[in-house]
């Protein structure tokens, strides 16, 4: 409905311009051509206030960015979804060059988002499916005891651990 009103109003503005042009003596296509003034005038009226607003927004962004730390930049998106970025950094230090990992996460509403972030933070190491086929298993908010046979389980905190995969690649 709102779109229809906007379109109708714009067409009406165009019609008024044509009528006005005919009143001042323009005829035929020349009068119709004056409709070009509608977008031009609208652009002039809208562009300047928008220009000012956007400039202010960009300056605000510049100011806000000046206070960011390197950690905010690197990990801010993960921190924003309450990912345990410190655990992931700790786990990443275990992975050797070109080693892969399987990511095991407990079920929660945020599991999908957390997994996307975790795989991003653990890059360039590559995640594999099934998890046990990687060099390592990374346990995130899940009980590693369910996955038997990890002699060298390294626990960061309850539910968060890393272990050499029993199967391997």
């Amino acid at each position, binding site marked *: 409905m709102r779109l229809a009103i*906007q379109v109708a109003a714009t067409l009406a503005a165009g019609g008024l311009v044509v009528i006005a042009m005919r009143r001042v003596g323009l005829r035929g296509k*020349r009068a119709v051509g004056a409709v070009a003034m*509608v977008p031009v005038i609208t652009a002039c009226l809208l562009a300047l206030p928008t220009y000012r607003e956007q400039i202010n927004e*960009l300056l605000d962004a*510049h100011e806000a960015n000046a206070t960011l730390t390197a950690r905010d930049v690197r990990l801010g998106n993960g921190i924003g979804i309450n990912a345990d970025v410190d655990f992931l950094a700790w786990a990443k230090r275990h992975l050797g060059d070109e080693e892969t990992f399987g990511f095991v996460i407990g079920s929660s509403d945020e599991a999908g988002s957390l*997994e996307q972030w975790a795989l991003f933070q653990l890059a360039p190491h*590559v995640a594999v499916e099934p998890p046990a086929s990687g060099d390592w298993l990374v346990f995130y908010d899940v009980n590693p005891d369910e996955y038997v046979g990890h002699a060298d389980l390294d626990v960061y905190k309850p539910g968060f651990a890393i272990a050499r995969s029993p199967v391997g690649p």
Partner: protein
Amino acid sequence: MGPDIASFGIDALLAFAGLWVLIGIGLVPLRGSSMLAALGLAYMTGAALVPVVLVALLTLGVPVTLVTFFVVALACVVVGGFAARKSPIDAMETSDPLRWLRHWRSWPAETWVVVVFVALVGAYSVIGMLGVFESPLAGWDSWSIWVRKAQVLSNHDSLFHGFFTNESYSFAHLDYPLAYPVWESLHFRAAGVVDLQAVLRHVWLLLVGSIWALAYLLRERVRPVVWAPILLLALTTPGISGQLRDGYADVPMALFACLGVVALGMWIAKEEAGLLPVAAIMLAVTANMKNEGLAATLAVLVVGGAVVLVRRLDVRSYATAAGAVVLALLPWRVWLAVHGIEGDMPVSKGLNPGYLLDRIDRVGPAIAAINGQFADPERWLYLLPLATLVVVVSLVSGVGRRVAAFYLGCFLLIWAAFVWSYWISPHDLEWHLATSVDRVVSIPMLVCLAAVLHLSGLLLRTLTGEPGPRQRDPLI
């Protein structure tokens, strides 16, 4: 500072390569001031063509490194230079390229319009660059899809199977084309680091470059008094500049699409050599950025083809250009097919009447959501109503009718394609609309921008009594 300079060096090389492509196709004369004026279009051409070529090389198994990039950029320069070898060089301008500056007191009013436009856009560009220079990427897809792929492409010289055929990363839409992450990865490689703060600096250049490019393309058909305020509006439209700062691929894709549609619209108006190759390059990269870009590109090619056939334009040239676009999107599609990678959209079911009927209840909400975005004055500043006005007036009055029909057809077919994609999508409609519709409308809105720019220019010509394209070209 070193990594920053190196990554901006990639942009400079892209602009240089693009400039020689434009010189080669005859769109930019070998003249200092013209080359400077065309720098925005040159950057967009290089940023479109080079990644498309690199994606094709990747699918063929050619290692893509900075050396490959330099070779492709150099090839653009050599081929462009070879094609332009017979172009005359303006001897007077070569001796004094800035002589026009000395006569500023006698500049006509329209030159001052351009000067004010350049000053405003220049200030906005610099402040914008300051605003985004240290901005981290906060948009979800920007890091989860695009930078993730760019990082893989920076660490591996090939389409690393450990990632691109890995089910664990299916959430990153492994079927999406790669032009955008390839473009990002070039900057990462040059900087020597995947820096989440660096991406938006270069994305910002795409915005400034595209506005500059549109001004260059339109300069001879549309008077500055028309394009300057409308382009200034486009530059500051929150739907464009605000969304661009999320780091998603949608706005860059829409900017390329807009350039492609304008170049094709202008070719349809006058069949000027050089415009068709530019349209093809811009549409090729649009199709190589996202699946929505592919749908939009095919829609534009279909509508363009229909106009060419109906108005009996140069079918052979058009078919060559359209063929080149299709050829450019094939390598990635073939690679996907060979490796059995499928997207989440059930395209084959999308023409099955039974499947469509079962989901007919999705059409209404999809249309309402898309049209609701069009009507959002906070984001799109009445671009669609203005486009409707100029298209209706052009169609009724006959001023630029074939061009108006082209823009209208493009808009409607793209709109229909997007409604169809929501119709057949396997995702929960509410979620799908909530997470995508505000971005999806970028391409149709920039088609509206193209229509407003071009048709307003044609209409103003009839008001001022200037010889319009029809008088120069009886086919219009």
